[in-house]
């Protein structure tokens, strides 16, 4: 584990180049360039807003629906895009990774980092809007770096795991698609957790809260949406919010590390096979 951190540090130049490659490819030679970063997430938010707020009349008490959506959709998109792109990244970049002593996990890691860079501006906008629109204690905003940190680690771990598995079993791609689809609906991106509490028995609600993505999303909301914490503190203990995702993230990182250690010598065999 320490060796991995050392490798990341000693080859940070390579990581930087890979992240830059990702960003450059995304925006090079495209009109409007960086604007695309905002366009897709905002289009999603507007679509959801129209469908769920205007047509389906979903009610959310914790925050203005628009802000609630933004805080959920942006962070979910970051996770979704990273994992979806990372799954096939080793085979897509076959030519890149077949170099002597190339650390394969750098590719999914770079994808995750490039995606977090894309995610930050829209997060910033959410922060600004929420500062003006909602009311409540502003202190939680300072936990944002910590939350982002956990989120990035979790995403990178999942990305590395799926990318390695995909090299061996090409069916993993469909598993990932299914997983992301189900996880999206199991996470309160566009509905309130109180809808779950109201609809399902209590035990189900507890299980629902165990979903680490729910935990992370709620953490984001506590940080971004003023007043969210005060409203939900009776149902969500801050410790269960933090410890759940934290333990899960560490577990994912260890799993990813073990998987990589077992596969690092044979990845190229499977890639060239």
């Amino acid at each position, binding site marked *: 584990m320490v060796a991995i951190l050392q490798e990341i540090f000693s*080859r940070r*130049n*390579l990581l*930087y*180049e*890979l992240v*830059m*490659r990702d960003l*450059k*490819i995304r925006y*090079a*030679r495209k009109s409007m360039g960086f604007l695309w970063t905002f366009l897709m997430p905002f289009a999603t938010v507007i679509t959801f807003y129209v469908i769920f707020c205007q047509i389906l009349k979903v009610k959310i008490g914790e925050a203005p629906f628009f802000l609630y959506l933004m805080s959920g959709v942006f962070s979910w998109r970051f996770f979704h895009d990273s994992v979806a792109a990372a799954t096939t990244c080793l085979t897509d970049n076959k*030519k*890149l990774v*077949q*170099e*002597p*002593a*190339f650390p394969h996990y750098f590719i999914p890691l770079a994808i995750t980092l490039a995606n977090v860079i894309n995610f930050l501006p829209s997060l910033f906008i959410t922060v600004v809007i929420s500062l003006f629109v909602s009311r409540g204690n502003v202190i939680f905003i300072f936990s944002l770096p910590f939350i982002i940190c956990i989120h990035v680690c979790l995403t990178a771990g999942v990305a590395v795991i799926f990318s390695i598995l995909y090299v061996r079993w*090409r*069916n993993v791609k469909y598993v990932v698609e299914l997983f992301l689809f189900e996880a999206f609906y199991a996470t309160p991106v566009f509905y309130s957790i109180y809808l779950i509490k109201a609809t399902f028995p209590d035990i189900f609600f507890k299980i629902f809260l165990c979903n680490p993505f729910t935990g992370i999303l709620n953490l984001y909301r506590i940080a971004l949406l003023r007043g969210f914490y005060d409203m939900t503190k009776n149902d969500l203990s801050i410790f269960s919010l933090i410890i759940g995702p934290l333990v899960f993230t560490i577990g994912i990182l260890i799993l990813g590390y073990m998987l990589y250690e077992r596969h690092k*010598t*044979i990845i*190229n*065999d499977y890639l*060239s*096979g």
Partner: protein
Amino acid sequence: MIPLLLNDTAMAVSLGALSKKYPLQAVSGSHTRYLGGEFWALKDISLSIPQGHILGILGRNGSGKTTLLNVVAGIVPPTKGKVVTKGKVLGLFNLGIGFQDELSGRENIFLNGSIIGAGKTELENALSAIIDFSELGDFIDMPLGSYSQGMRLRLGFSIIAHLDFEVLVIDEILTVGDILFQNKCFQRLIEFKHSGKTLLITTQSMDLLERLCDTVALLEHGCLLFHGEAEKAVNHYYALLNAKKFFVGLPKENVRMVETTKKWADNRSEWGLRLGTKEAEIHSLSLYNKFGLLCKRIRSGQPLKLRVNFSVNTIIKDPHFGIAIFRKDGVYCYGPNTLFDGHKIPELKKGKGWFSLHYKKLWLAPGEYVLSVAIWDKYETVAFDYHCGYYTLLVTGADNRDNKLLDVKAKYKLSRKKYRPYTFIKKSDARAIMPFLSDASVHKQQYAGIEIQSFLLSHPSGQKKGIFITNQPVMFRITISTHLLEEKGRDIWFGIFREDGIYCHGISFAIENDTRITLVYPQLPLLPGKYGVSIGLSNKKTRRPFLHFPGIHSFCMTFDKHDHGTVYLEHSWAWKMA
């Protein structure tokens, strides 16, 4: 196993008994399915390259060149064996590896450089030199997607050429650039060599190989066939190519290196018959000795010329001549024909003619042999005339009571070694190696603690191998544990058996109390197939064997030519229509 000198400090790259296996996978749709088979891309390759040398790797497509380079570069791990490289290894593989089409040339320098492992400052310092060397000019800021293959190569090579490394591995790319750039690369490679870098290159340009490489390794089906001077390797390679070309279109077994041949007569009951369509007729076979005189018998090891007179009744297109030698018991000794030897006879006109087969040295051991003579059609399927086992040949010479097949000469060297605690070749192992040599009459005996301590088969240059090419040199080295061998007057007998137990060749000589026996065959004329080695010790005076190690080792022969029989005898053909 034989310990290899992997810690030799003068060697920049050492490969010890390297093998690489790929699982066989079939692709159906988007799924990769494991086929259950395996494919050995490299088999037991041992090589070492001194620092500052350039090794060329030669071989047909799919012979394992790229896999070898991949293993040396550390991209894929070997399945068996060991790779030891000194210093940093860089690889320049297929064009475009590590390149990103969407990025500009300049950006690719940084990306590619950092993938290879260069630091940012190293790259920044080398940047202008790289761009200059690549001669890309303003294109350096264009996206790589707009580059031609040659431009990609130039960029790729330029990056490598300006970074620090000890060993460089280059795969079949240098021929892409134009002549000017090729020369530049060439000069650069020579500069590398002079500055003590070690290079491994593969290329299909024989010219480049001969100009550049200190030594060349020839690979075929993952085996190392030859390692030595470039010129010789190239000649071997051409021989290989020609042999293949000749068999294109023939059954699949001929497409590969020949691994086994026909070893017995088809049907001995047909001996003495004249078969065939009689469009051509064989009239007589006569034997001539080294003085060109007609003879009835021939001494073993002497030249022999066989001349066949025939007549043709209609015009025959693409005929082939063949003469086969069998031992009395049906063992197929050798059956060359003009088809296998690559001769093309466009047609035979009506009338009389003759063809002859000239053996430079008839190495067959003394005994009675039977000859078949035939004139075949193009693919050796229809015989125009076939005299099956019709003629006899008597070979005279020294006593051949043990009924061996071959009387080829070998050199041997004896030396003594200090006592070393001996390691046993386990009885069970010996059986496993050569199950077919369960010589029932003599059992291996443990006699006074004498054991074969080690057995080594190799090319005389010292390269350990298990597969040899017909008529190439082979060296056997046997070490006997000997602390109890004080009694003088011993003979050692060394025998080679064919897979089915036929005694091909044997040699025996006195060893006194020597413990290390080196036996060199300048040419081992055994045709493709599996062979085994047995060793025996006997009392010199009484000639009674007291120790026998049957089947202690096995080896294979392959050949780039198709032939029938067990032994290879150098020969030439001649024919004429009257």
